[in-house]
């Protein structure tokens, strides 16, 4: 029996039951760490292990906790919580309230993560929903609107109502009708617009009219047992605007959420702004030397060519080889990253639907 006011302590050297719902026998610290039925705390535990390995290895847990509390300043706690939260965001795309640290420091942690580009709600912090959606679409997924909240970490069904128009207006996704369901697809997926459908309808209508003429003629001549030559039929059908099968142009390789998660160090936002400003209205092409110069103006320490190559690897931009005859001066050529066959990549274009 426990005395009133006494603190319940576990002696991990003794065999005992787990204090949670698990029925597993405990065998010291290792088993204690393994025993996590919900699985939620593993990331935090791992982060804690990394943060205070020395304490863990030499002290009894209660002592370690006591000493840690005594020694850690608020800043240290925030730093620890940030490590935990970032790990959770990388792993799961979302960090729950518990992973954001104690209530006392939670606001600070949330604030820092928001500055890094993550989205914060009352209960959690997550990778921005638009970014998550863009990543899924870039992998070739087509997400029914009704199930969007299930595919996005930390998203509620209610939120999707406001999210979908936002995704469409910012050109992260395009809404299409598949069967009876609205589905989000990548903007790079070829679409058939209303005008094409109307034109096809018209063409089919004309064709049906012609078929009626043929039918009538065949009926008139039915006694003579006449038919229509297959090759003529094939030719007529071939002239109809039958849709072609377009395959998704999504990149093949799967990107980790770390790659697309925005951070203050990520020059992408910067780069995107410059690309938008410098690109040609019709072709979307921007000159790489001009982009690099502009990037350097705004931050000389930035490795501009590397930033472009990184954006290319992430499927955000298309880098194109130079195709001119001596149009590129040696100075400009030196600013261009090198591509296949060592050709200077002198033109760049934003890929449609690149992560915002």
């Amino acid at each position: 029996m426990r005395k009133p006011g006494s603190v319940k302590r576990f002696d991990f050297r003794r065999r005992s039951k787990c204090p949670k719902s698990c029925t597993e026998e405990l065998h010291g610290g290792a088993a204690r760490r393994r025993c996590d039925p919900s699985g939620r705390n593993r990331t935090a535990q791992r982060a804690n292990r990394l943060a205070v390995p020395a304490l863990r290895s030499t002290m009894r847990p209660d002592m370690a906790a006591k000493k840690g509390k005594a020694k850690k300043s608020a800043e240290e706690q925030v730093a620890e919580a940030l490590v935990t939260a970032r790990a959770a965001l990388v792993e799961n795309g979302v960090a729950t309230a518990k992973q954001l640290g104690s209530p006392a420091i939670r606001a600070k942690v949330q604030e820092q993560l928001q500055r890094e580009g993550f989205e914060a709600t009352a209960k959690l912090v997550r990778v921005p929903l638009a970014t998550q959606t863009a990543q899924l679409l870039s992998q070739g997924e087509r997400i029914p609107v009704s199930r969007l909240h299930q595919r996005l970490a930390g998203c509620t069904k209610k939120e999707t109502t406001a999210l979908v128009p936002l995704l469409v207006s910012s050109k992260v996704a395009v809404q299409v009708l598949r069967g009876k369901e609205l589905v989000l697809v990548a903007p790079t997926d070829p679409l058939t617009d209303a005008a094409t459908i109307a034109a096809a309808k018209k063409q089919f209508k004309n064709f049906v009219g012609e078929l009626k003429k043929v039918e009538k003629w065949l009926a008139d001549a039915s006694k003579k047992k006449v038919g229509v030559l297959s090759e003529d039929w094939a030719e007529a059908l071939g002239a109809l605007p039958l849709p072609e099968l377009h395959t998704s142009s999504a990149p093949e390789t799967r990107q980790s959420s770390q790659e697309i998660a925005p951070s203050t160090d990520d020059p992408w936002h910067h780069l995107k702004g410059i690309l938008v400003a410098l690109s040609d209205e019709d072709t979307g092409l921007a000159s790489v030397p001009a982009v690099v110069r502009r990037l350097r103006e705004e931050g000389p320490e930035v490795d501009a060519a590397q930033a472009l190559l990184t954006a290319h690897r992430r499927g955000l931009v298309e880098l194109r080889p130079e195709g001119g005859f001596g149009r590129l001066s040696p100075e400009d050529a030196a600013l261009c990253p090198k591509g296949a066959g060592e050709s200077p990549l002198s033109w760049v274009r934003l890929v449609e639907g690149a992560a915002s």
Partner: protein
Amino acid sequence: MKETFLGAVHADPWSELLLDLPALNAQASDSVEQTVLRLREFARRDPGQLRSESLVLLGPPGTGKTHLFARLRKKLGPRAVFVHIRPLLHAGMSTAFVLKQAVEQLSRTSGGRFQADALVGSLIGLAQSALVSFPTAHLDEWRSLTPEARKQQIEETVDALLERFPDLDDSFVERLLQVPFVSPRERRALLAWLAGHDCDPSQLERIGASASLPEDGALRALQTLGTMAALGAPLVLVFDQLENLVQRDQVEERITQYGNLIAELVDSTRGLLIVQMALDSEWEVGIEPRFNLSQRSRAVMKKASLSLPTPAQSNELLTLWHAALDAPAAPLPWPFTREQVDQLLQLPGLTPRMLLTALREAREGQSIGLLEQPTPVGSSPEASLVSAGEVLPEEWHARLVSAHHSIDSAEARRGGLDSERLCDGILSAASFAPDLRLRATQKKYIQITPREGQGRWVALVNQPHPSSIGAALRRALQQPPHLPGLVVREQWCPISPTAGATLELQDEVLRRPHVTWFELGREQAAQLLALDDLLQAARSADIMDSAGRPLSEELVRSYVREELHPERWELIRELALTPPETRRQDEEGERGSVLEATATPPSVSAHEPPPAGDSTVESILLRLRIASVDRLIREVRRLRGTATRHEVVEQLEGLGSRVAWYGRNLVEWKEAS
């Protein structure tokens, strides 16, 4: 062989074998398709709204511009007529050139049927307000009619078309409608007339025409063709490799000419879709900024750039090509390893052509150039020359074979060579002669003039009809007598011995002290055409080294300079000769005639003096080995202006068994046994 696609570095726009990934550049092809359908719709429903439209498509080398042409041709089938035009390197393009290309390509097959048949078939369907989707059925129906009934049907169709579009050229409409129903010989004659070629009398008689299409009738013919085509299968003029317009020394002139041509086509014709394809850097920096506002508003109505394949699309391309290999040893990634495929797909700036080159290398068991330690082209001149030395002889040979084919086909249709291409070839070859500075003119009869007032003018006399030859010769004779000139005619197209008036004009030309008559041998002509083709490909970065990197134009030119020596080709040497020399040699009778019956290797001098002998005829025949009597007469007259046919024939007969006669006009020198 299915694998021929592996060797084709540059896509063949007319290939029936098309390995295509529709998702790649789907937007660009959809845009062209929508425009074609819209033009057809306007032509049928609202002719007043029918206009010509233009579209610019840009991309780096090897991104699939020419492939896009082949795809559209296949996709649209009989719903459009496609014309593929490559600009000339030196000479400008005119409406006559465009008309010639458009009509010549009507006899190309697309999707198993002649483009002319698709055009006329759908037009007949429309004119009869019947089933427009069955062009072949309509043609077959008309083919089954008696000639009189068909003629009546054609006349009715012409009337119906003229009622709707009163400004059409009725004789052009009528002859175009006849094309699918006539014999191959008549078809050839009709197409020659429609293309604005000069027709010989038998061709004119065959098609019931009194004269060829007039020189200034090209634009009206294009207007008629464009409008007619828009009703059934709109005409899509695809100007490919427009980077060839850019030349360092005469940038403004050629680009302005081109801009004027497009503006004229857009303003004066209806229902044309003008697609312009070029390398992005060249267009953006070298061409479009040179257009004035008016030209730009016509030439650049829409502009788009072609995309490079994403890694997923590159993978799909590999799958597609792998499936087309003859007996692949294993499924993909063979002939690569998985690591190689992963590396390739992640390369930035990877074009379909580079990927195809890598596949070919892997298939042949070679190392993959793109994945090796790179040696930038041009960084080491020796390495670049070695690399070029492996590729360029093959490229040259392939182009020489192709040039011979085009000469054969010109001969088969009893016409001369394409004078624009030949003129371009001469200018390309002349650019290698250090002291020769020539320029193309826009004139029909005097195609080349010296750039700085010194040098010779050149007249290409390649007409088949004697009266047209006479017109060309008269124009040559109108040149100021003190200006030296060169009259060039294909050696395999002799002037008919019955065309007395033309022969007299020829004699008059021969008597001019400053004018030289030059008969161009087949091999010489093939070399000129092949050189032009090679330099065009180099300009478009279409010649790749073994690692799939484009060879620079300078490198190709240095190969041509070192190995082919165009400055030593006979025609170029003749052009480079200064007139006083020519005169002196003529007077001294020492210079060998430039008339060569067969090709002379570049290293062998064509100006060796004729062998000594009592008889001039004997010495000339000894050199020529085989020649027509007319040719011999001309040769003799060059040396002795008063010589007569009788004297020449008498001398020939006097040679006895040393001369073999074939008929009455051909003689061959026989060595004494």
